[in-house]
């Protein structure tokens, strides 16, 4: 039996924060968050709206300053080296409507290109075609999805070593979302990139991801590779005797419980054999121990702390 991992056994980190804490008035946006994004990873930061995801990303660009804790990107302190960090990051903000509403899309791309020596004009043109950008439209009249695509183009076209994508698929129709995932897969094949994606739509981007961090109410509940998550979490269907008292020794690792008649369904974190043995020792019959899809795993992790404290099923 082991606690959910919140630290990676990683070597080279492109993003590393230590105990980041940020309050807005009496609201705590981040509480001791220690993100670890290994170089080359595609890291999903998941959590419900208001969990602190956008604040965490902004802290990495020094667009928001934490009250305490440290944030390092490329080994640089974001407080003292914010400008250097921003110059090497492609950022898609959650709300793509900031500023430049009066500017036409084509003009904005030209304007943006001048800030980035590495801007690849041919690639920008290609992206504009794939994303079907209307270059003569003004930014201010674009739909959310259209503005998102402009920002994706601006983020990708200078091939930065780090992409910070805040809800990148939000507002995209299913066809354009699919196209965007294709663009990202192609981009990763061509350009060595570390990607940090914040989203509350895990299922929309999970194919690209290899790491996951789960943020709830400003606290990082868990952080690990997706392989570790898949390996460590199982859904158990258990046939139980009348009036079953559960398994006290699994207390704290059962993330989800459901009961129907004499069958219970648990999602449990831990070694499958060990968990199954403990259930069997408590007179439960394990009918199935099945891997859990990433979306269900995420939901289970987000629920941590709500249900895991109950000692028995009820």
């Amino acid at each position, binding site marked *: 039996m082991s606690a959910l991992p919140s630290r990676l056994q990683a070597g080279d980190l492109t993003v590393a924060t230590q105990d980041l804490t940020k309050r807005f008035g009496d609201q705590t946006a981040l509480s001791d968050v220690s993100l670890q994004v290994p170089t*080359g990873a*595609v890291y999903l930061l998941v959590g419900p709206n208001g969990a602190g995801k956008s604040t965490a990303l902004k802290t990495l660009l020094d667009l928001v300053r934490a009250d305490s804790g440290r944030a390092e990107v490329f080994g640089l302190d974001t407080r003292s080296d914010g400008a250097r960090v921003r110059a090497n990051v492609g950022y898609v903000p959650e709300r793509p409507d900031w500023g430049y509403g009066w500017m036409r899309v084509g003009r904005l791309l030209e304007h943006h290109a001048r800030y980035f020596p590495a801007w690849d004009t041919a690639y920008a043109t290609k992206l504009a075609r794939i994303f079907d950008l209307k270059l003569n439209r003004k930014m201010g009249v674009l739909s959310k999805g259209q503005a998102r695509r402009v920002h994706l183009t601006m983020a990708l076209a200078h091939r930065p070593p780090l992409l910070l994508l805040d809800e990148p698929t939000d507002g995209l129709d299913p066809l354009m979302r*699919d196209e965007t*995932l*294709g663009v990202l*897969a*192609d981009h*990763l*094949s*061509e350009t060595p990139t570390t990607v940090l994606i914040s989203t509350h739509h895990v*299922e929309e981007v*999970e*194919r*690209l*991801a*290899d790491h996951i961090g789960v943020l709830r109410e400003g606290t990082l509940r868990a952080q690990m590779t*997706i*392989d570790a998550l*898949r390996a460590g979490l199982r859904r158990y*269907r258990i046939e139980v005797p009348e009036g079953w008292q559960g398994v006290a020794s699994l207390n704290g690792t059962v993330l989800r419980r459901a009961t129907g008649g004499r069958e219970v369904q648990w999602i449990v974190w831990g070694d499958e054999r060990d968990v199954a043995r403990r259930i069997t020792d408590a007179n439960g019959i394990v*009918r*199935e121990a*099945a*891997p*859990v*899809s*990433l*979306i269900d795993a995420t939901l289970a992790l987000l629920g941590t702390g709500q249900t895991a404290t109950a000692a028995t099923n009820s």
Partner: protein
Amino acid sequence: MLISVDPGDPRPIYVQIVDEVRRAMVVGTLAPDAPLPSVRQLAVDLRVNPNTVSQAYRELEREGLAYVRRGQGTFVAATSVNGTERRALAAAVAARALRDAYRNGLSARELIDAIEAAESTGTAATLRDGAEETEQ
């Protein structure tokens, strides 16, 4: 060859790619020495991380199902389609069926009897005949 993956499937995506290639080899849609798509191409087609495709290709190589020709890509191994691969595929299908049976409170014996009954009544005949045609 068509490879498809499903993120809802509990198998990791790289395992799904390996299984799809194995299946195509056993069924015969992938001939020995046929080229596999490039990592980039398959990553874009499936909308997956290119590292996942590389991992799948490394696994195929490790299992002796594929080989790499420097600068040219990954190819299906020449000696790959034999009884061993068919048995491995059958074992995987059996394991899945058995898990399903057990979840439904059925024993292995009950499952085997039901499979044989289904076979003799022709429930699966359409599927099976289709499979036999592609094998030739």
